[in-house]
Structure formats: structure tokens, C-alpha cells
């Protein structure tokens, strides 16, 4: 089933939007680079609605042992315990065994479209 999420202008770079597929939340994210991705919107840890979290970056260590930031708008952080998910793969950054289901997203005629299984 294809769902029209919103117009492209309604989802700026670095932002997220939650779409309900029946009872299942799907978080659609637009990365800092402008790509679209979608993941199932429940945290695999304690079940928080990830749409209440933030799309952010990955902190890394720079050459001086300080903070460097990368992958802007590709990391979805849970609103509760702040677990980090890579929206491009659905994988939890700190635990590869924790993984969110991903869904195809595309843009057509200025709209963001999401392909999800038929809601039961």
C-alpha cells in the first residue's frame, strides 16, 4: 500500500514526521543530505514512540580527542533513553542486534510517498 506522507516542502532536511499505518507508527525522516528514509516508529528497547524523539547527528572523536559531528540528520534518537538508530538501515548504533524495520520512501510529483504493508 502506498501512502502519501506530505508534500516535500512539509518535510525539511533534518526533520521527521510520524505516519500511522493502522496501529503501527512509521517515522519518515529527511536527512541533512536530503534523502528520505522510513523506519518503524517504536523503539526496540522499551517501546517508546520514536516520533517524539529527535533526528540528529553522530558524535565522533576528532584528531585532537574532541568532538566531531557527522551524518547530520541520519540518526534518530529515542525520546526516552536516547538510544540511537541509523535511519538509513534501521540499526541501533550501539547494538546491531536491535533493529527497526525499514520501509521504502520515494518522491513523486512533489509528494513524499511511503510503501507499507496493508494494515490489518
Amino acid at each position, binding site marked *: 500500500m502506498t501512502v502519501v506522507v506530505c508534500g516535500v516542502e512539509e518535510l525539511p532536511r533534518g526533520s521527521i514526521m510520524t505516519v500511522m499505518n493502522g496501529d503501527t507508527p512509521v517515522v519518515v525522516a529527511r536527512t541533512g543530505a536530503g534523502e528520505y528514509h522510513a523506519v518503524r516508529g517504536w523503539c526496540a528497547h*522499551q517501546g517508546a514512540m520514536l516520533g517524539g524523539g529527535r533526528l540528529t547527528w553522530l558524535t565522533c572523536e576528532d584528531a585532537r580527542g574532541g568532538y566531531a559531528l557527522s551524518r547530520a540528520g541520519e540518526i534518530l534518537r529515542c525520546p526516552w533513553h536516547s538510544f540511537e538508530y541509523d535511519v538509513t538501515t534501521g540499526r541501533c548504533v550501539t547494538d546491531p542486534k*536491535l533493529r527497526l524495520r525499514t520501509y521504502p520512501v520515494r518522491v513523486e510529483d512533489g509528494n513524499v510517498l511511503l510503501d507499507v504493508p496493508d494494515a490489518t
Partner: protein
Amino acid sequence: MTQSAAVLDHDPSPVLDTPVIDVDVHEAFSSLDSLQPYLAEPWRELMAQGAWKGFTQPFIYWATGGGNRADSNPERGGPPGSDPELLRRQLLDAYEIQAAVLTGYFYPAMLGDMQVEFASAMASAYNDYQVAEWLAADPRLLGSVHIAPQDPEGAAREIDRIGEHEQMVQVMLPITTRAYGDPFYFPIFAAAQRRGLRLATHHTVHVEGALGMGRYYIERHMLIPQGTMAQLVSLVCAGVFERFPDLRVVCLEGGFSWLPHLIWRMDREWRSLRQEVPWVKRLPSDYVAEKVRLATQPVEDMTGDQWEKVIELMGSEEILMFATDYPHFDFDSPLRSLPPRLPQALKRKILYDNAREFYGLEERAATRA
């Protein structure tokens, strides 16, 4: 089973199959001005002049929502935890919670040794605010008497003043850098015992590990249990549980899986060095089993087998009491924080029975009826 697999080991649509009591819920005021109507003079006028601006935190929070769940900001404005309606919706109704113990997060203990009269006045104002704006809002809410422990006589008067309110169940003992086994604090314990109230320890932003706060917030958050362990050791070695035989203590948000180590160590030390503390008349583990309860939050992501082993090593299924810590960022969901494969009877003790017994909720209900 690996730890990660345990985290994944969830029923996709869990349902609550036991009633729930939540023993650590942090209500908050919208701003310090919320206390003004309840504050006695001369403090009300001084506060109106902006003579004190409130507590500050000595670090920056890294979690998604700062110190709170990022989804807990009230639509009407104000900080997380400040809207009784949202608290009802996100916590009490969402998880069908039977009773929730309010524990605040405005602890006059953090004012330190200066101006203890002001600290006690702020505690009194907070208690009246809590009664009027929270306990009156929902009968499922139970209250904590806030005190300035640096003013033990004032604290005892406050416990006597407000402690008889039918929804008040305990006295808060915020953990800063002091050990409560010091006889200086005994008037507080005498008053709590007199009023039939429990004691609840909870860390403040001032609590430190053995080597200080740590360089990073994550470090400090890992070290918080040290403060709880230190308070428990202090209370046991000072003979507080002998001197005040009706006192019972819940340690909130300080971890629990360390307890087997601590009771074994305390028992061994007592067998060796008991001569120094003759007021400690029984094995420390006996006092713990009888008088001390630990709140579960923040749970460590253990498997069901690991939970059962830790509880077996504690020697009692009655010690743990469930807490969410709403609205703080490390909130534990009643649906998801305990492994689904924990035996049903044990799960029910943790989520409900142990707290009901500890706070005497059945007897309270019978008294009111």
C-alpha cells in the same frame, strides 16, 4: 541468551497482566512562583523581590529531552511533570496505575548549611503546594513530605505538621554529600516513626561517586548507586533500624543489582568488627530484608534468568518495588522494562504487591472506608 537478545525479547503487543504501583514519579512546579501562595513571610516577600533564583545544575544533560522524556513537554507550557492532566494521560491512565508516589525534585537539602530557616520554609511551601495542586487532583497520587534535613528540628516539626495528611506516605531523604546515620538527623527519624511514615532516599544533582562527580555526565550517572549504597551502610552502622524499630526505607533510583554484594560484605564486616558498633544487634542483611526496599528504575537490561538470579541472591522476593521515574529521560515502561518471561507471581510482587505492603495501602484504604 545475550543481553541484546533479552532486550529484543518482547511480545510485540504486551498487555499489562498485573496491577501497577509506581513508587517514583517526579511532579514539578511550573516555576518558583508556583510556591508563592504557600510561602510564609518574610520569605514570600523576599522571593517576590527575586532574592533567590532556584537551584542550578552543575552539568549539561546529553539525553534527547535533556533530563526528561522528550515527549513529556506539556502543551500548555511549563516543564515536564508540571501538568497533572498530562501526567494522568501519559502515566496513570496509559498504564492503568493504581497508585503513584510523588517524589518531587525540588529538594531544599540542596541549599546546604546556610539559612536553614529558609530551606525549611521552602520545604513547607512545597508540601502545601503538593497537597493543594497534586494530591487533591487525583486520589491515585500519594505524597512525600519534603524537609530540609540540615534543620532536623524544623524537619521534625514539618513532618508532624503535614505528615498526617491521608495521602502522605513517606519522608524524602535527598542524597547530597551527607550520610544520614549521623545522630544529628535522628529527630527526623523519630518524627517519621511517630507519624507512621516511610523514608525514601533519592539522589540530587549534588551526589558524587567516591572519586567525585566524574568527568562526564554519563560517568556521574553510572556512579549514582554509590550514594545509595553509602546511605544504606550509614543507616545500618548507626543502628538507625534498632533505635527506630518501626522505620522502613525505600531507596529510589539507586540501582538494585549490587545488593547481594553489599549484604554479604556488611554481614562479613559485622562478624569481624561488630565490637565497634554494638548498637547493630543483628546481621545487616536481616535489617535489609525486613526494613529496606529498592526501587527498580533505572533497570539494567537483564534477561529474565538474570533477574531471577539476582533476586535469589538478594534472599527475598519482597525487596524490589517498581518505579517509572516519570517524566525523567530514563523512564521505565511498566509494559517493557521487566522481561516477559519473569514468573507471573514474581512480576506481580515487583509491580504491585511489594509496594502495597510497604506503604500499607490496604490498611490505609480500610481506615478511610
